[in-house]
C-alpha cells in the first residue's frame, strides 16, 4: 500500500457539500403537491381532556385535514418499548410509553393533541388557533421526591404510585466494608442534565406512492432501520414497502433516536390517507417540549474509605426523573448506576434506584446518557474523602485506579447492553500522569496558585477521571462494492449526524482496497441502500459499523486478488493492491484496475464457476460480545471573579484513551464538542420548571447554550490501549468529552474560592454564577 489512511488526520469527504450549501437536510426535501403539518400541543402539564372542537379549523381555507386521537381509530396505539429492562433479579418496571396524540389525558406540556394539515405551514399554524380544547387541569407531578409521596397525584391513573422502575444491583458486601472503614462520607447530590438542542430541530417528510404501494420517509433519526421496521408494522406494510432515509442530520446527541415520536407516527399515516406528501419541521419552541430531555437525579450516596484513601465500598440510593413516559426503558439510570464505579477498584457496591414518572417531557439518553450523574457522585465523594483525609485530590484518585494487570476487569453488575459490566482493557495511570503533567498540576499548587492568591485572584484546579462503556452491540453491517468506474461504494445502516463517517469509514476501505480516500463513497441512513442495522448511539458507530466496513473491505480485497490472479495466471502472493489497481510485484506496468476487475466479476458471456458470486462486493456484519470501555482524565484551571462569580477557564486538558484511532482530527472534534456540551451542562444550561410543570426558559435567549466566548481552548492528548473485542481495536469516543465536566468544575470552583475552608460544598449541577453566589451567601449568613 502506498498511503496508509487509517490513523491519519484525513480531511473530510463530506465537507464540500456542507460548505457550499448543497447537502440535503430534512427541510430541504421539496416534493410536488407537498402538504405541511402543525401540531396543537398542550399548554398545561397535567389535565383531563373534556372536549376538542376542530370544526372551525377544518373550515379555514387552505386546511386539508385535521385529526385528533379519535380520528386515528385503531391506528392509535401507545409506542413500543424501545429498550426492555435488563435481566436484573428483582427488577420492577412499569412500561408506560408515549401515545401518538393525547386522547383522554395530558401528561406533559407540549404533548400533541391535534394535527392540522394544510397547503402551507403558515396556514396550518393559523388553524391551530381555531381549535378549542376544553381541559380540566390537574395538579402536576414535577418534583421527583414529592412524586413518591402517598398524597401525590398520579401521572398514570392505572398505577398506584408514580414508580416507573425500581432496581437494586450489588457487588460484594457493602455493610461489612463499611464496618471496616476509617471514614464514611455521606452526602446528597443533585445532578440535572438538559436538552441536547442540536441546531437542526427534528423533522419528518412522508410520501406515500399509492400505485407502487410504497412509503418513503425522510426522518432526522439516528436509527433509520428501527424506524422502518416499526413504521412498516403499524402501517400494515411489509418492511420492503417502506424506505426510511436519514439525510444529512444537523446534530443528534441522542434524542433523535427515540422512537416513535408522535410526529413520526402521524406523518406517514396522513400521507397514506391524503395520498399526498406531507412535511413537518419542529420549531425551536416545540423542541423544548416535544423532543426528549435528559434531566435530574437525586443521589443519597455514601463512601466507606480506609485511612490511606482506598475505597472500601459505596452505597448509593437515587431517584431518577423519567418524565411522563418511559419508552427508552432504563438505559439512563443503569448507565448512572454502572458508570459511577469509574476507573476505580470498588470492592463493595450497593446501588438502588427508583425511576419516577413526572408531568414533564420524556427522558431518553442525551450524550453521556446518565453517565455524568454517576461520575459526579463518585468524583465528588473522592474530593470530600481527600479533604477529610488530607490527601491530595489527584493522589487519592491514583491510589484507587484499577491496576493495568487487572484487565479484563469484572464489576459483577449488569450494564445497559444486558451484559455483565466488564472493562475489556485499560491502562489508567499513564492517562492520569499525562493529564497532571499537561495541566502543570504540581507547579500550579506549589507556585502559581499561591502567587495568584497573593494578588487577590481566585484561581483553582480540578482533575476528574471517568470510564465510558462504548461500542455496544448488537451489531452493524456494511456492503462494500467496487464499481466499474473504479470508485468504491459503501453502505451501512447507521445514521450520521456530523461524526465524519463519510471519511473515517472511507479511510478503513481505502487502506484495504488500495484506493484514495476520496474514491470511496459512503451511504449511511438509507434503508434501501443497507437493510439491516441498529443505529448511531452509545458511542458505537466507529466501533461496530467501522469493524463491519473493515470486514467487508477485507473480503472484497480477497476477491480482487483472486480475480487478478486468475487474469494474470499467477499466485495471489505475487500481487500488490495500490493506487486503484492490482499489479504484479516488481512489474508495475503489468496491472489491472479495480474497475476492470469489477467488470470481470460480472461477465456478460461465458461460464461462471460454481460457488462464485458475481460482483466485486461483499456484505459483512460485526457484533461485539460486549461494549468496549474507554477512559480519560480532564483537568482544568479555572478563575472565578469573586464579585460576579463569572468563570474564566485558564487551561483545559483532556487525556483520553479510546483504543486505536481512525482519524485523530475527527476524534479531536468529538472531544471538543463533548467538552463544550459538558461545560454548558456544568455552568450555563438549566431547564427551569415551575411547580406546574411549565418550562420557564423555552427559548435559546433564555436557555443558554455556550458560545465561542464561554468555551476555552482545549489541549488534548491520548494514550492507546486497543480493545481486544474487535479486530480494529477501536473504542468509542463520542460521549467522552461531555462526561466528567460537572465534577471538574465543582472541584475547581471550590478550590478557586477556597470554599472547603468555609464549609461550603458544591454538590449539584448545573451551577451558574447566581447559584454559586447563592450557595456562598447562604453559608455566610448561617
Amino acid at each position, binding site marked *: 500500500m502506498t498511503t496508509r489512511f487509517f490513523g491519519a488526520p484525513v480531511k473530510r469527504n463530506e465537507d*464540500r457539500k*456542507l460548505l457550499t450549501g448543497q447537502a440535503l437536510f430534512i427541510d430541504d426535501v421539496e416534493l410536488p403537491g407537498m402538504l405541511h403539518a402543525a401540531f396543537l400541543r398542550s399548554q398545561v402539564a397535567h389535565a383531563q381532556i373534556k372536549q376538542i372542537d376542530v370544526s372551525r379549523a377544518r373550515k379555514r381555507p387552505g386546511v386539508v385535514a385535521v385529526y385528533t386521537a379519535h380520528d386515528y381509530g385503531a391506528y392509535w396505539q401507545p409506542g413500543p418499548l424501545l429498550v426492555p429492562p435488563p435481566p436484573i433479579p428483582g427488577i420492577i418496571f412499569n412500561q408506560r410509553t408515549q401515545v401518538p396524540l393525547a386522547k383522554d389525558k395530558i401528561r406533559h406540556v407540549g404533548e400533541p393533541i391535534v394535527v392540522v394539515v394544510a397547503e402551507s405551514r403558515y396556514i396550518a399554524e393559523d388553524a391551530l388557533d381555531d381549535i378549542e380544547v376544553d381541559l380540566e387541569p390537574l395538579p402536576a407531578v414535577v418534583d421527583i421526591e414529592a412524586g413518591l409521596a402517598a398524597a401525590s397525584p398520579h401521572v398514570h391513573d392505572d398505577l398506584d404510585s408514580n414508580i416507573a422502575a425500581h432496581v437494586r444491583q450489588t457487588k460484594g458486601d457493602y455493610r461489612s466494608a463499611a464496618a471496616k472503614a476509617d471514614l464514611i462520607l455521606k452526602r446528597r447530590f443533585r445532578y440535572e442534565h438538559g436538552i441536547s438542542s442540536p441546531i437542526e*430541530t427534528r423533522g419528518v417528510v412522508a410520501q406515500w406512492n399509492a400505485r407502487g404501494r410504497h412509503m418513503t420517509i425522510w426522518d432526522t433519526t439516528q436509527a433509520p432501520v428501527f424506524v422502518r421496521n416499526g413504521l412498516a408494522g403499524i402501517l400494515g406494510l411489509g418492511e420492503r414497502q417502506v424506505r426510511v432515509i436519514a439525510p444529512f442530520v444537523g*446534530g443528534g446527541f441522542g434524542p433523535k433516536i427515540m422512537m416513535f415520536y408522535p410526529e413520526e407516527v402521524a406523518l406517514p399515516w396522513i400521507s397514506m390517507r391524503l395520498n399526498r406528501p406531507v412535511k413537518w419541521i419542529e420549531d*425551536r419552541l416545540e423542541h423544548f417540549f416535544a423532543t426528549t430531555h435528559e434531566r435530574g437525579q437525586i443521589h443519597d450516596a455514601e463512601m466507606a474509605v480506609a485511612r490511606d484513601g482506598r475505597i472500601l465500598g459505596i452505597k448509593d440510593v437515587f431517584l431518577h426523573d423519567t418524565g411522563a413516559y418511559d419508552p427508552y426503558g432504563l438505559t439512563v439510570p443503569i448507565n448512572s448506576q454502572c458508570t459511577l464505579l469509574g476507573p476505580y477498584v470498588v470492592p463493595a457496591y450497593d446501588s438502588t434506584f427508583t425511576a419516577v414518572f413526572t408531568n414533564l417531557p420524556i427522558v431518553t439518553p442525551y450524550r453521556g446518557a446518565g453517565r455524568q450523574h454517576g461520575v459526579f457522585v463518585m468524583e465528588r465523594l473522592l474530593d470530600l474523602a481527600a479533604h477529610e483525609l488530607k490527601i491530595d485530590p489527584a493522589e487519592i484518585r491514583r491510589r484507587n485506579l484499577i491496576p493495568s494487570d487487572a484487565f479484563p476487569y469484572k464489576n459483577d453488575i449488569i450494564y445497559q447492553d444486558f451484559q455483565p459490566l466488564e472493562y475489556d482493557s485499560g491502562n489508567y495511570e499513564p492517562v492520569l500522569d499525562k493529564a497532571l503533567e499537561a495541566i502543570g498540576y504540581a507547579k500550579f499548587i506549589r507556585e502559581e496558585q499561591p502567587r495568584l492568591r497573593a494578588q487577590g485572584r481566585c484561581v483553582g484546579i480540578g482533575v476528574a477521571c471517568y470510564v465510558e462503556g462504548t461500542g455496544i452491540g448488537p451489531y452493524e453491517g456494511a456492503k462494500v462494492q467496487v464499481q466499474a468506474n473504479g470508485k468504491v461504494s459503501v453502505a451501512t445502516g447507521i445514521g450520521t449526524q456530523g461524526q465524519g463517517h463519510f471519511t473515517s469509514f472511507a479511510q478503513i476501505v481505502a487502506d484495504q482496497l488500495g484506493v484514495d480516500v476520496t474514491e470511496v463513497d459512503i451511504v449511511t441512513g438509507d434503508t434501501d441502500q443497507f437493510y439491516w442495522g441498529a443505529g448511531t448511539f452509545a458511542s458505537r458507530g466507529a466501533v461496530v459499523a467501522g469493524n463491519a466496513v473493515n470486514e467487508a473491505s477485507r473480503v472484497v480485497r480477497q476477491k480482487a486478488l483472486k480475480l487478478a490472479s486468475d487474469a494474470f495466471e499467477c499466485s495471489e502472493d505475487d500481487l500488490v493492491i495500490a493506487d486503484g489497481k492490482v499489479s504484479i510485484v516488481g512489474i508495475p506496468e503489468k496491472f489491472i484496475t479495480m474497475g476492470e476487475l469489477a467488470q470481470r466479476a460480472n461477465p456478460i458471456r461465458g461460464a461462471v464457476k460454481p460457488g462464485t458470486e458475481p460482483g466485486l462486493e461483499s456484505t459483512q456484519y460485526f457484533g461485539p460480545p460486549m461494549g468496549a470501555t474507554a477512559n480519560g482524565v480532564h483537568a482544568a484551571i479555572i478563575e472565578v471573579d469573586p464579585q460576579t462569580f463569572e468563570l474564566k477557564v485558564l487551561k483545559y486538558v483532556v487525556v483520553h484513551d479510546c483504543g486505536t484511532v481512525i482519524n485523530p482530527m475527527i476524534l479531536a472534534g468529538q472531544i471538543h464538542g463533548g467538552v463544550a456540551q459538558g461545560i454548558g451542562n456544568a455552568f450555563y444550561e438549566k431547564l427551569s420548571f415551575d411547580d406546574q410543570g411549565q418550562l420557564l426558559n423555552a427559548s435559546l435567549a433564555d436557555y443558554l447554550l455556550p458560545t465561542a466566548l464561554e468555551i476555552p481552548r482545549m489541549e488534548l492528548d491520548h494514550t492507546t490501549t486497543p480493545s481486544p473485542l474487535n479486530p480494529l481495536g477501536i473504542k468509542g469516543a463520542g460521549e467522552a468529552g461531555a462526561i466528567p465536566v460537572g465534577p471538574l468544575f465543582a472541584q475547581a470552583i471550590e478550590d478557586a474560592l477556597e470554599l472547603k475552608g468555609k464549609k461550603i460544598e458544591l454538590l449539584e449541577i448545573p451551577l451558574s454564577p447566581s447559584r454559586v453566589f447563592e450557595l456562598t451567601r447562604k453559608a455566610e449568613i448561617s
Partner: protein
Amino acid sequence: MQPEPHDIELSVNGTTYRRAVESRILLSDFLRHDLLLAGTHVGCEHGVCGACTILLDGSPVRSCLMLAVQANGHELSTVEGLANSDGELHPVQQAMHDHHGLQCGYCTAGILMTMTAFLQENPLPSEHEVREALSGNLCRCTGYQNIVDAMLAAAQAMRTAAP
C-alpha cells in the same frame, strides 16, 4: 381571506428574482422554499442561533428576523454564492475544511456568512476578536475551537491574497 401578495424584486448572489409574496413570509422561508436556495438554514426562528445569517447589502442579518418584503430592492448574498464560479472555495470555506471547523454542518452557512463579513471589516483579528464575532452563532458540535483556528487561518489567507 387570502392576503394580497406584494411584488418584490431582489438580487441574490448576483441573480435578480421577481416574485409575488405574502407580507408575512419570512425572508428565510422565501430564500429556502421559494427561491430553493436551501443552503441557508433555520435553527431557532428567534434570532439567537445565527444559522440563518445572510448578507444584506454586505452586512450580516438574520434572515429569520426579516420579512421577504423588507428585502425588496436589496442585494443579498448567501452561502451558495461564496465559492467562485469554477467551484474554488472561498478562503473562509477552505479554512473550515482544512481545520475541521464543521461537524454536522447545519450551523456552518451562518458562520461562513457572519465571518466573511467580519474578516472584511477586520482583516487582522486577535483570537478574542474572532471569538467575539463568532459569539452570535451557536454551534453544538465543534466546541468552536477549530472554527476559531479556521478563521485565524482564513484571515491570513485573505490578507495574503489581497493586493
